[in-house]
């Protein structure tokens, strides 16, 4: 992307005031998005994100600058600015880069932007027609078709020089059911770290129908009850509970400052004995996968919790310097506009051996959350929330009538210990996770789990 000579000059300049470490991140990204609703292709946009970020470390201070101008002059100016923001030791090193080829573990068959727009719009129309055809209560279908091709170059003062090419494909469908006075929504957003072959692998008719089914079911549901209940959370997006209740608090971004409920818990029991949780960037073509992280390190499979015992945090370079734990290839960022931070990739609770039907049968009165919406957490207090997208009452050991409109709240340190059963139907679902280094693609996942008691924020 850039001449190696220029990269070396920029890193040398960034080190020139005695910095401990310097890094250059360059990005050239092509985005394409089609927005469809009212049965029509409404908006169509393509664009080019382009820029570079220079980062230096002085001890535990990180300094970052970015620019859209990739001329040698502008990059040297940015490097000069970061170098002068602090003063390091007298030893100023000069660097020697070695370009390293990375192993591509996520094959792309049909690269983005090689398929005609008409084919994409045909796909969208099939989703739209399937949703509207499902039920005459479907009043609107919103579809967003997104492709992204991100080319990155990362070089640093340790001699690292790598490039990678990342293809992302995702379609987001939201169907609205209406009965004249009320409206409810059903949404699905499947995506992969892959090219157009991903769209060829999904059935647009099933996708459309599924969003319509949830919207109509919820339109005809009563409100959920209020109070404390046992809850069964099913697989797929249900994994958002681990993501919020625990995942963010295991990022060194929170741990290094002491602003996490899991500080000092390494090697200790923090969850139910049968709970094993993993954050894995190596799963082929999964939405949260990568070849290298945004600090140029190969991505890894990281076991976070094994049989209830805390085994690892998610560690980026600065997090490693501050906490002493080894890097886990978790340094991620939305774009050159952000300095990297420790972030999740594909994060999931591993399969257990409890039978799903026995889980339901074990509850007299409770909630079955078939699909979850999003959530959030305050890592410092551990208080989290997430919403139910498709819910049902459990009565006398059976799944009963649908219920809607409930958020579940709890405390991370507490909720993990209240998990009492884990099934064997692990599945993942796609999301965009927002934090200090921007919005990055992540998978959440789990098999169905039972939580003995959680606060359900219903209306009855």
């Amino acid at each position, binding site marked *: 992307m850039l001449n190696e000579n220029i990269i070396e000059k920029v890193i040398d300049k960034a080190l020139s005031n005695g910095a401990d470490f310097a890094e250059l991140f360059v990005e050239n990204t092509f985005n394409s998005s*089609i927005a469809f609703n009212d049965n*029509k*292709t*409404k*908006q*169509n*946009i*393509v*664009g*080019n994100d*382009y*820029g570079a970020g220079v980062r230096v470390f002085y001890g*535990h*201070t*990180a*300094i*970052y*600058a970015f620019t*859209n101008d990739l001329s040698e002059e502008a990059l040297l100016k940015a490097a000069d600015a*970061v170098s002068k923001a602090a003063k390091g030791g007298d030893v100023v090193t000069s660097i020697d880069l070695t370009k390293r080829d990375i192993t591509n573990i996520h094959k792309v068959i049909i690269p983005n932007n090689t398929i005609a*727009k008409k084919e994409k*719009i045909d796909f969208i129309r099939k989703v739209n027609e399937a949703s509207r055809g499902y039920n005459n209560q479907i009043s*609107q279908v*919103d579809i967003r078709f997104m492709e992204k091709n991100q080319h990155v170059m990362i070089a640093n003062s340790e001699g690292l020089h790598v490039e990678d090419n990342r293809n992302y494909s995702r379609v987001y469908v939201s169907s*609205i059911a*209406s009965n004249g006075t*009320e*409206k*409810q*929504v059903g949404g699905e957003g499947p995506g992969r770290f892959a090219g157009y072959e991903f769209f060829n692998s999904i059935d647009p008719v099933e996708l459309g129908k599924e969003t319509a089914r949830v919207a109509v079911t919820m339109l005809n549901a009563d409100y959920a009850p*209020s*109070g404390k209940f046992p809850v069964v959370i099913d697989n797929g997006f249900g994994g958002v509970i681990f993501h919020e209740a625990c995942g963010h608090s295991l990022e060194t971004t*929170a741990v290094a*400052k*002491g*602003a996490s*409920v899991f500080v000092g818990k390494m090697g200790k029991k923090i969850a139910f004995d049968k709970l094993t949780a993993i954050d894995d960037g190596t799963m082929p073509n999964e939405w949260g996968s990568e070849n290298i992280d945004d600090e140029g390190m190969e991505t890894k499979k990281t076991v976070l919790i094994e049989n209830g015992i805390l085994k690892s945090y998610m560690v980026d370079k600065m997090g490693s310097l501050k906490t002493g734990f080894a890097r886990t290839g978790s340094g991620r960022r939305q774009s050159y506009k952000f*300095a990297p931070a420790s972030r999740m990739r594909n994060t999931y609770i591993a399969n257990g051996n409890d039978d799903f039907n026995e889980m339901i049968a074990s509850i007299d009165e409770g909630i079955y959350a078939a699909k979850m*919406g*999003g*959530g*959030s957490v*305050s890592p*410092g*207090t*551990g*208080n*989290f*929330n*997430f*919403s139910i997208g498709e819910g049902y009452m459990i009565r006398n050991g059976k799944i009963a009538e649908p219920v*809607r*409109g*409930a*958020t579940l*709240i709890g405390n991370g340190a507490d909720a993990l210990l209240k998990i009492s059963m884990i099934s064997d139907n692990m599945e993942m679902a796609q999301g965009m996770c927002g934090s200090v280094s921007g919005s990055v693609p992540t998978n959440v996942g789990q098999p169905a789990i039972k939580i003995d008691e959680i*606060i359900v*924020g*219903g*209306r009855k």
Partner: protein
Amino acid sequence: MYSKEFETIFAYAKDKTDDIEILLSAGNSFSVKINEQNVESFNYADSKGIGVRIITGGKVGYAYTEKFDEETFKRIVDEAIENAKYTEDDDLVIMENYPENKDCPNVYSKELDKVDVSDKIQLAKDLEKYAKQADERVFNVPYAMYADGKSYSRIANSKGLDREDTQNYAYSYVGVLSAEKDDKRMGMDFLITRDFSKFDPKKMAEVSVKKSTDLLNGLPVNSGKYPVVFNNEMMATMLATFSSIFNAKSVQEGRSLLKGKIGQKIADEKVTIVDDSLHPEGFSTSAFDSEGYPTEKTVLIEKGILKTYLHNTITARKDGVRSTGNAARGYKGTLGISTSNFMIEAGEHKEADLFNKHDSIIEIVSLQGMHSGANAISGDFSLGAQGFLWENGKRKHSLKPFTVSGNFLQMLSDVEAIADNFNFDISSNGASSVLIKELNISG
């Protein structure tokens, strides 16, 4: 600024498009974060981007770039033309040389640009220092930061419209964690301003610490229906979360509860909601919107009656009304509608009076999960919350985290009293504390 870029694009697009609009944003920003009296991070940003919206054969296409060279500029025009071919929208889109808004409040301070970096760092350090000193129950100050920036935008179209705007801002926030027994709570305070001398780190630190420590030792709440007071900050959050119900595009596309309700009473008569792009104290203040259309103060709900939706020229034409100057678009996005300085007007009560209106009231001072637990299409919400139980006009004790649920439109009809403590939040949504007759509380 950037005249050469605009000329290049206009010249290339002249014979290829019926009309073209060019939107440019550029700016720089700075931020510093402090941890344990050391600089945790410095960030400097210098960014720019340019987006085109073109009309050809009545159809609209978009493209953008952050790479600035002649070849790329030509390419985005061609890409936008190609994109337009696949657009099926039948809304009539017209570009015009709209009149200019003569009187817009000043949104730029020369003085702010002159503040020395060392003063900014000291401010952030002081936030952390004072927060740690304020109360021994404070065990961590995860956020102590200062940021500022300057942004330039220019919009021009092939009908001769050409507007530019330069703004700057500075903001700071401090977030503290305190603990007592097993209870841990977070408290935050912020300030956004163009006058650096307004930052008072001691006061901000003390406010955030008090917000945190007041919440300690929470007791469980009995689930049920309660009268609820949202403090001014949380009322602004609620208002912002549901602002899209006023968006004419959402209305026309069947995504708003307010469809067909113009002229009807949809809220208690104490409720007046306005959007004012020209408010001198807001930070979403601008003389023109993202079509270059002049902005204004728009009354959305007047004494409970729905008066209008928020429009750009496309939705306005469809409804046979005038645009309210709320067109919104970044260079990377497509044309939509958004609020500017968006607010519920202040009432006449002192905040303390609100708590005298019922024997038992729940005060909400913090909300979580706005992006997942609130549904602007149905109006339903179920949110994580923190706050206090009030009895007979006295704040009795803090509550363990609980949920609050209801429906936003119902809530507007159930407004019982509005206080006079109006305040803007960091995103220019403004409100006073508001008493709601009844909402569901679960804990």
